[in-house]
């Protein structure tokens, strides 16, 4: 840098590791987007890989980049790409009934990332508990939002927004805990 003292405020050179994290964050945003299109038939409700990639983003990228990656995913949806579950898009979806889950993705990626950073272990069981907490966060946001915007009682929201997905959620937690324990970036 020639004039390092004059333009440090504009150009702070990024270390290579940051660029890599940045690309990985966009990768996980893209994976979360296509996760909505990969359905695995199990019982009456086919479940998607979307939440798997949300939780993995937190576990593998850490709190900061995991959250940023989910923010990018949300912005992609707002920009009109059909990235939300079922191929939906637009600002309307965020404010709509399922919008809470999308906001929950950001919080969940942050919290899972935080837990993994603080207490890194090789034990699948501990990792499963961290991932479980992430899923709880997603559903907490999703159900609260559903209750608020759709004028529902707690039990009504649970019936529509939680009970049908329990089985799938447990399978996803197991999968994410396994992958996060065996693979690292």
């Amino acid at each position: 840098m020639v004039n390092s003292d004059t333009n440090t405020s504009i150009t702070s050179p990024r270390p290579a590791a940051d660029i890599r994290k940045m690309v990985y964050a966009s990768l996980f945003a893209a994976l979360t987007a296509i996760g909505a299109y990969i359905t695995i038939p199990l019982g009456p409700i086919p479940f998607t890989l979307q939440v798997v990639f949300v939780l993995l983003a937190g576990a593998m990228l850490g709190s900061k980049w995991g959250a940023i990656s989910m923010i990018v995913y949300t912005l992609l949806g707002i920009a009109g790409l059909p990235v939300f579950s079922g191929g939906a898009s637009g600002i309307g979806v965020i404010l709509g009934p399922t919008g809470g889950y999308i906001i929950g993705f950001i919080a969940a990626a942050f919290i899972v990332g935080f837990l993994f950073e603080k207490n890194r272990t090789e034990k699948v069981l501990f990792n499963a508990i961290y991932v479980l907490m992430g899923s709880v966060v997603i559903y907490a946001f999703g159900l609260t939002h559903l209750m608020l915007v759709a004028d529902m009682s707690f039990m009504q929201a649970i019936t529509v927004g939680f009970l049908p997905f329990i089985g799938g959620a447990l399978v996803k937690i197991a999968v994410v805990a396994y992958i996060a324990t065996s693979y690292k970036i």
Partner: protein
Amino acid sequence: MAEPLFSYVRGNSFLHNMDPRVKIISVMCLSILIFNISVLSHLLVLAVLFGMLTNIAGVSISVAIRSLRPMVIFFCFIFLIHLFFTDGSPIFSLPFSPTYEGLEKGTVVTGRFVLLILFGSLLTSTTRPALITSGIEHLLRPLPLGKLGTTSFEVATMMSLAIHFVPHLLWYVRQIKDAQMSRGLKYGHHPISGMLSLAIPALRGSMRMADDVALSMESRCYQGNYRTSLFEMKMAASDRFVCIFVVLGTALIIYA
């Protein structure tokens, strides 16, 4: 596996030529308005407004309807729950009957969501994704993203990168799925192993791809600063007028 559809419809109307920032702000204001509605007739007023705007934009109504399709099942659920579980005078004299109050509440709540999505689809069908991205980037600039350790320019770059990754990854995952199926994998029977056999190769392969992209960005000295873009936005006088009109209008309706 359905192909993701881009909802942009080419055109040269007033709405198409409006500044994307103004359009994003207007949709946000309209969404706030829609959420404050509790009377059916107000919903109808906004529905008429939507009809007029689609007419101006020259976008066929089927494009807007298509954007509703993913949410239809959820809307039906919400409508039915309100229809049956709201207290009031029953429509039929059965022990478990829908009520008139439920019918009204269900219609208002579902109608709100339908309008939200319709107005959102109006934004995306009249604006190129690249322009919305740069519009979002401009609107993010005043936010304190620095505290998060990133900048609006980086967020915009990440959005473009993710847009670039999506079709590639879809193709890649389909290849993996076919490869695993041809090796005798049955998804429905073993959900955990089925998911692992899809997710792990997809992750490994896409990470290899991401590493390549990171390396090439690094070797081209990517810094994450302001860069000029292919689509430069201009705020015309009419854009300013629309923006002020919408923001003031929303504020007046809510606080008056």
